């Protein structure tokens, strides 16, 4: 009997080293102490090297050249150099996201095609690209394809005014003129007009269950008002700058006009699009396959056409599955753009590496790299999460 009693007593007053609540607090304290000790040890090692920690070097003269992106001269500051890198990364990543989505969407649908050959071609592309490293693909594209293109004096002429050479790609550019200032208000008015029509149409659908006019009517103000403005003001507000082969004095041929994309930029963009496109294709395929076949069949039975089934039934449901992995593909693409340094494109990372070599401020520059990538990742996540919330169907 006494045994039981003593057990009861010991339960009442458990020694503190066996009390779960105490243990939990102790575990956290121990963990924090451990992390701090490791940190302090690392810091003391760093201090021994007597390296100053400050960001003041950012105002100093960078004294190196950057051949890509917004204007930069060697007398500009390190901060400006970093900005050049950030802008270049954003440029390649945003274009990459747009094109990779297109490639992925087309390939993903092709992969599910009824046509055996089309789906085979798509799956061969996906398998090859997904099973080789991106850096190898980039090296191949840059060193073995783009740098082996003909010299700038005899470029390949793509159908249309596009010139390919080992110096890069020259493409047409849309440029504004002095009269653009008096033209853009027309654009705003056109957008407002189209918006009002869209709202009116939405109201009609709400009231009667069917639109009271065709969607095409919304496009009318978008076309008519800017065209009216174009006629009313003097001089064209926009012009298309086409690249052209011109022979300068001495018979040297030169490409003039248009926008020239450097070979590094082209290689990186194409490489990222091909690589991420294959991954997005798999995401799209999985999304579409997640919609039960019965949904398609039921829709067909109700008389929807093939296009309507895809647009109204399958895609809205597939998108719910597609968006979350798509976000992580976009994030991957942004992070993978740092491989630019392998082929000499001056992205955020490559510029930072140069800054690091010049200034020797290892820790500071790495903090800036981390902060930039983290803020880009967060921005993409935020935007896509908003999209995701709009698309999610409210479930019962």
């Amino acid at each position, binding site marked *: 009997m006494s045994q039981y009693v003593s057990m009861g007593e010991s339960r009442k007053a458990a020694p503190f080293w066996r009390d779960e609540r105490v243990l939990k607090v102790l575990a956290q304290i121990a963990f924090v102490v451990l992390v701090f000790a490791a940190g302090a040890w*690392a810091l003391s090692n760093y201090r021994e090297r007597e390296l100053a920690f400050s960001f003041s070097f950012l105002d100093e003269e960078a004294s190196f050249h950057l051949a890509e992106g917004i204007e930069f001269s060697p007398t500009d500051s390190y901060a400006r150099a970093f900005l050049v890198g950030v802008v270049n990364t954003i440029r390649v990543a945003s274009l990459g996201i747009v094109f990779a989505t297109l490639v992925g969407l087309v390939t993903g649908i092709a992969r599910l095609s009824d046509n055996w050959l089309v789906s085979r*071609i798509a799956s061969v592309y996906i398998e090859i690209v997904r*099973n080789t490293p991106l850096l*190898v693909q980039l090296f191949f594209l840059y060193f*073995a394809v783009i740098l082996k293109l003909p010299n700038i004096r005899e470029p390949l002429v793509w159908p249309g005014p596009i010139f390919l050479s080992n110096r890069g790609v020259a493409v047409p550019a849309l440029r504004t003129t002095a009269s653009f200032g008096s033209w853009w208000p027309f654009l705003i008015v056109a957008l407002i007009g189209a918006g009002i029509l869209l709202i009116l149409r939405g109201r009609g659908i709400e009231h009667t269950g069917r639109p009271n006019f065709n969607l095409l009517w919304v496009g009318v103000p978008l076309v008519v008002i800017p065209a009216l403005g174009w006629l009313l003001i003097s001089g064209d507000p926009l012009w298309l700058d086409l690249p052209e082969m011109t022979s300068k004095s001495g018979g040297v041929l030169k490409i003039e006009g248009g926008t020239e994309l450097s070979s590094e930029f082209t290689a990186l963009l194409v490489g990222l699009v091909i690589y991420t496109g294959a991954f997005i294709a798999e995401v799209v395929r999985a999304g579409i396959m997640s919609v039960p076949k019965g949904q398609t069949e039921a829709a067909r039975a109700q008389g929807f056409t093939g296009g309507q089934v895809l647009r109204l039934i399958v895609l809205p449901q597939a998108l719910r599955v597609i968006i979350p992995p798509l976000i992580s593909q976009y994030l991957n693409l942004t992070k993978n753009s740092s*491989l630019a340094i392998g082929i000499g494109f001056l992205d955020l990372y490559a510029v930072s590496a140069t800054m690091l070599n010049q200034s020797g401020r290892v820790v500071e520059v790495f903090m800036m*790299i981390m902060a930039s990538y983290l803020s880009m990742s967060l921005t993409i996540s935020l935007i896509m999460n908003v999209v995701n919330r709009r698309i999610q169907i409210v479930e019962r």
Partner: protein
Amino acid sequence: MTVQSEVLKPPRTEVGLLGWLKKNLFSTWYNILLTFLSIAFIYVVLRAILTWVLRDARWEVVTTNFQVFMIGRYPIKELWRVLVSLGIVVLLAVLTWIFRKAEGPVRRWLVIGWLLSLPLIGILLRGFSRESTFLPQVSEDVWSGLMLTLILAVVGIVASFPLGVVLALGRRSELPVIKVLCTVYIEMIRGVPLISVLFMSQLMLPLFLPPELRLSTVMRALTGMTLFSAAYTAENVRGGLASIPRGQYEAARAVGLNEVLVMILIVLPQALRAVIPAIVGQFISLFKDTTLVAIVGLLDLLGIAKSVVGQQEFIGLHKEVYAFAAVIFFIFCYILSYASRRLEQALGVGER
């Protein structure tokens, strides 16, 4: 009842080769169009590839440098050590294949064999001291080629595994401090590119270590890969932990196990089994990502390829060299992803 109706054969255009062709290639007018376009596309692409591979390519750059691609600067005199290591792996793989259905002690011995093989191969490849006659030291810095690629990937995934499990448990912990610190680590690493982590381990890590502790370039790269990979392992393991039903915890607690034992005996074994396919997937991407060490100056398969392209007699043969590297990566990754799919079926993950 007894009337025998004649069973008609299906029309010839609906079955067999003809039926297949009609169904898959020529069902509608746009399908027919697509088929012809595809055939034209395949013809053009295949012809270009085949004429290059069979006629124009100068493959002697690969054949003369084959050994360089495989083991790089590893001393030829010590080549047998690489071959023996390879032999151990192949032997274990074959044994695993033979006894794949076996249960009990055989299986346990295989696991022990695999676990022992790693340090064994490590010792074999690295050797003891510089002076010793038996297995003289081959410093990590001369490890290169495909060998280095494989070592980086395998060590990266194996070393990151325990760290990843701890991080995953930390992130799911009820203790706020531990949870926050683990989450911050995981999200920080996942938010930045691998190349920046690799550079950090090359340049920043030495600054935070005592000057007398000098790590070789390969060791620093391995540290970087491990720290990076651990964050991804942690997320995979966390997924596995989340898939274990709550009843398992409750039942184990009701039986009288404390929280630590519940984790070790009940939850982790089930969770880790569920994440095996995800870990294989992670291994594939880590294997591909090892190429990034070429940027920080290591001579992995891609780094070797870069230096081979610079050889005087083979100048400008980028296509051949990089195509060869790509094919090697493709073979490994394709086999691995095939194995991972088989494994997924065998484990029945997601089917229960």
